[in-house]
């Protein structure tokens, strides 16, 4: 699903990159190139022409209010992004990492996975910082096995997610991209039975 979305986005961005003012011939050519996204390409071309027609007739300029609001938005976005760093900085000295907790509990990742029990790939993604939006049932179970409080586990997880490992996902072209997924996505693609998946995704 995620790959399909990325493929769709790449096709549309490439379409707009090449066809500034799309003609019928452009649209048909791109539809042949990307039949899977024919509907998106046609609609993007139509919206582009509609917006262009309006913009040519009634040119719009930024007003002071919009500029001020955008200024506030960028400050808030930076504050939010950096708030994570402040938490991590404060806890880095105070609390152990996930791997530290695992070591203190005298466990390895495969052993922890067997105890839960859950697929190893789920535990591996957690420790590599590639997991977000954890569910309470999972956090509680992991904390119990590691012998730490849920709060301490959450802090250690936040730290791991802040500096995720690339793990074998580096690409031969372009910059390496970390593929962070939600807990639900990881559980659903883990290969566990429907019953096990339902258990881990159920609300506590």
């Amino acid at each position, binding site marked *: 699903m995620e790959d399909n979305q*990325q493929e769709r*986005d790449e096709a*549309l*961005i*490439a379409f*707009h*990159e090449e066809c*500034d*003012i799309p*003609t*019928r*011939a*452009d649209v*048909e050519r791109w539809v042949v190139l990307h039949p899977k996204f024919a509907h998106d390409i*046609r*609609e*993007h071309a*139509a*919206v*582009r*022409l*509609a*917006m*262009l*027609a*309006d*913009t*040519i*007739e*009634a*040119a*719009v*300029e*930024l007003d002071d209010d*919009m*500029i001020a*609001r*955008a*200024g506030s*938005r*960028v400050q808030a*976005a*930076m504050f939010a*992004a*950096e708030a994570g*760093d402040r938490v991590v900085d404060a806890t880095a000295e105070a609390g152990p990492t996930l791997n530290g907790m695992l070591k203190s509990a005298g466990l390895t990742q495969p052993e922890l996975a067997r105890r839960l029990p859950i697929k190893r790939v789920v535990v591996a993604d957690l420790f590599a910082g590639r997991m977000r939006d954890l569910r309470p049932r999972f956090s509680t179970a992991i904390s119990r096995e590691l012998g730490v409080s849920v709060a301490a586990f959450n802090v250690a997880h936040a730290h791991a997610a802040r500096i*995720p490992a690339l793990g074998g996902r580096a690409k031969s072209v*372009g*910059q390496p*991209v*970390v*593929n*962070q997924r939600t807990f639900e996505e990881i559980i659903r693609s883990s290969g566990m039975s429907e019953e096990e998946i339902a258990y881990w995704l159920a609300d506590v």
Partner: protein
Amino acid sequence: MSDADDEPPLPGDHQSWRLVVNHGQLSGFPEGVIVGAIRANYRRLGVDQQFVREMIRFISRRMLEVIRGEISSTAFPNQGRDVVEDVHAAMLDALLSPTAADGEGLRKWFKSTLRTRSIDHARKAIIAKKRNPDTVDDPGDMADPQTELFSHAEQEVYVQRILESIRDKDKRAAFMLHMQGVPCSSKKGPSIASILGISPDTAASRVAAVQKQLTKKIGNS
């Protein structure tokens, strides 16, 4: 600090980028290059963050200008401000996220990534508008909001309006054929050159002139 016309510093060369910011030279570099520098240095340990934040504010303003140019001020309530602000907020998040695909998109294809996301948001707003029968404005055959955004007649009207903004009749005629998908020159069938009785070079030159004129009219987008 070297002149902004020179090769830009490498993305991770934070000392050079700090000088670029201090000398007020950011506007001399392509937006995508600046996005690359932001993504390489933002929240990076040991790097002074003041100049990085300055680059973020600069790019945020450029994003706002581009998005404003992509969204009609007449098709949506509140002059399209809500749509513009939604896109801007989403793209800011992507810019600041080290893992967001759109953040990387901004680095590689700054304007096309913003256009794609602007159209995605505009499309949603248009669908919502079309589902409300009181606000449907269809000049000909009705578009089915479940399957298509604009009817064929509506699309023709948009193209016609774009064409009407071109004052030069010769250029307008060439561009009209271009929008219909007729090539500038062709050995196999009709072309703009053969239909209008002009040389292929003249046909191509007229189409290019209109494209340039339209780009100028719509300013920053």
